[in-house]
């Protein structure tokens, strides 16, 4: 099958180009896109992309496949292209490209770090674990599972416009993960850090983040909860 890949090596190329490569799919199998890339790399070892776990839990291989962000390792060909169609692979949109399908994620990580993505509880811990009811723990479901693949934030128009000021869906999902944790005591401090026109309120609720999250998470809903907390605090 024909695979069209975004190619750019800043050392040798003036500008990026889409280059086609013919990949033989063994027995017409329904491979994952990552497997197709590995076959392509066997023919042309200079194709650069990130990958690690190959099972959708490490978040390395987020990319844009025929116009849709996702993880190459858990996206089957049959979900991406119709028979006879070309497979088109591009880097995640909106971030600077280092080479080929590898993007510079610095600003994405910076936004994550901004929300203090760690538990804050200044009371001395007990000699065993801190207790938490199953109901309180259930508040973290749908939040803690994030794998930092950046599929959501790079699919968000508000993040494209203001990647330095709008925290973006991934970072905000984590902000809420700690706001929602019954063990965390820094709610006021966390909300104060988010209470400006950009950090949270640039979310326009278009839900393009939730549409592409490979883990089925819903950052828009988490952002809604943060908004409600900020508004409640303001009244």
């Amino acid at each position, binding site marked *: 099958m024909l695979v069209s890949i975004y190619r750019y090596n800043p050392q040798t190329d003036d500008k990026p180009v889409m280059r086609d490569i013919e990949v033989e799919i063994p027995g017409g199998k329904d491979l994952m896109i990552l497997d197709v890339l590995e076959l392509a790399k066997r023919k042309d070892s200079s194709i650069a992309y990130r990958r690690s776990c190959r*099972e959708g839990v*490490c978040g390395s291989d987020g990319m844009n496949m025929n116009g849709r962000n996702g993880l190459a390792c858990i996206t089957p060909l049959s979900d991406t292209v119709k028979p006879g169609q070309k497979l088109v692979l591009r880097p995640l949109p909106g971030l600077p490209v280092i080479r080929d399908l*590898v993007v510079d994620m610095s600003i994405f990580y910076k936004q994550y770090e901004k929300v203090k993505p*760690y538990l804050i509880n200044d009371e001395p811990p007990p000699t065993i674990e*801190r*207790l938490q009811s199953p109901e309180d723990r259930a508040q973290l479901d749908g939040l803690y599972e994030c794998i930092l693949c950046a599929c959501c934030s790079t699919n968000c128009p508000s993040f494209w416009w203001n990647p330095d000021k709008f925290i973006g869906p991934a970072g905000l999902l984590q902000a809420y993960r700690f706001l929602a*944790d019954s063990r965390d005591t820094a709610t006021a401090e966390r909300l104060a850090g988010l209470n400006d026109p950009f950090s949270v309120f640039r979310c326009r609720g278009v839900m393009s983040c939730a549409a592409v999250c490979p883990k089925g998470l819903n950052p828009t809903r988490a952002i809604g909860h943060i908004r409600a907390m900020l508004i409640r605090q303001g009244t």
Partner: protein
Amino acid sequence: MKGMRSLDFDAAIVGGGGAGLRAALQLTQSGYKTAVISKVFPTRSHTVSAQGGITCAIGSDDPNDDWRWHMYDTVKGSDYIGDQDAIEYMCSEGPQTVFELEHMGLPFSRTETGRIYQRAFGGQSKDYGKGGQAVRTCAAADRTGHALLHTLYQANLKNNTVFLNEWYGTDLVKNQDGVVVGLIVICIETGETVFVNSRATVFATGGAGRIFASTTNALINTGDGLGMALRAGYPVQDIEMWQFHPTGIYGAGTLVTEGSRGEGGYLINKDGERFMERYAPNAKDLAGRDVVARSMVLEILEGRGCGEHGDHVLLKLDHLGEAVLNSKLPGILELSRTFAHVDPVTDPIPVVPTCHYMMGGIPTNINGQAINQNRDGEDEIVEGFFAVGETACVSVHGANRLGGNSLLDLVVFGRATGKYIQQELRQGVERRRATESDIEQAMTRLTRLNESGSGENVAALRSELQNVMQNHFGVFRKGEFMQEGIEKLDALRGRIAKVQLEDKSQIFNTARIEALELENLFEVAEATAIAAEARTESRGAHARDDYRERDDENWLCHSMYFPEDKRVGKRAVNFSPKTLETFEPQIRTY
């Protein structure tokens, strides 16, 4: 080397998985200049894939649970070549270490009383094997590794650890006194090569499951630490001991947690028979992993395998009900639907034993200090060099690791190593700085690769290597097949040394990294092969058709593989725990 930058640290930790991050946290908190050097962004390390949990006697499910029972199980599970002082340390320090993780924010699942949820895992017992199945594995649904790794990364962010993400270590640097003083690293993004000068160099580089064709391991598990150690002339211990996990998804190799059997799932053959009842009448599907994996292979060999080719068995979960599966095993539902095209809510998952874990590694003591042997066969500490986690062999897993013990190993010994280095740094260690020629020596391999002419393709050679290991050193082994395998590897060595690097560009050149990884895979494969052929007995994960019995007279010991003369020696197992009596070797049944 002219014009080469060097970076100075008190401690350089190579690897950003659970062990590396736990060690880094300890050192950063004590104020020492610590760097984590990781070839991937830390949360992409293979710890993230751990599912079922972290085994530890925290007394949540059973308030009378006892770390000594956990120790008994671990010693028995190791088939008696786990070091009892190290196992004692791990099991007794475990609860404190797990509570610390919880205090950092790890989102453990909870019981009705608000304590950490624990589930049953294989090889667990109460009262030294006399009290029935224990329930001892602390879990965050079936995403415990993900929860643990992210929590540790977050804790390091909070403490401002220095991260060199997407930097790749190529070889150790020794000074004129033969002491490890750092390593050569490549910044993948720019291609720049740097000398990292460190007072303590800690390998937390993980496993090497990619030496086999079929593995649950991530693509990055290429044994980089072991490759570097072997090239520097240091031995590896019990490297023939490879765990085949009973439930890798057929065809894809992705893992289905043992916790799925802990929650009540079981294996069936083509007749729908729950065959583990025949092999392990008491523990059944929760016998040791080596026992379950062998039983599965026997079922397949005897014609009771499932599917068109009769080459796998089935894991049945549907009887647990959709609610339990959704709350306890959500990740398994996802993986099965994606990779097996099977919904476990209604249908069983096709599974097959798959390479999963390396019990052997760089021999260390409880402080993480690497160990060599002198000419008289006595232990000798390698100064400046530490190892922790899967790449190390401390040895708590011996010939077979129990499920849930690897995450515990990572955090207990990551922490212990951090503490020890802290103490050593406080006392003040001064070592002679590496000279230009010391560094040049360590650069030999990289220079050769960068100047390589025509040769064979990396991917093709890698496949060939993986197939040799799969066919000659799998679940069941036999002398003559292994000798054949060793010959094939011998022929591969020269070809791999002349591998071709077509793309010599600098920026994010993954072809260069893969070529370097291939050499590490080869070093680990060869050590595995030679040590496996030498151990003329069956013990734990090492099962030989030509030596079916355990041979305590000759082999109740560690194997030591010395790379310089490819010799296999022996090293005594520790049978002297500090606070309790020795667990004497028994016949191992479940």
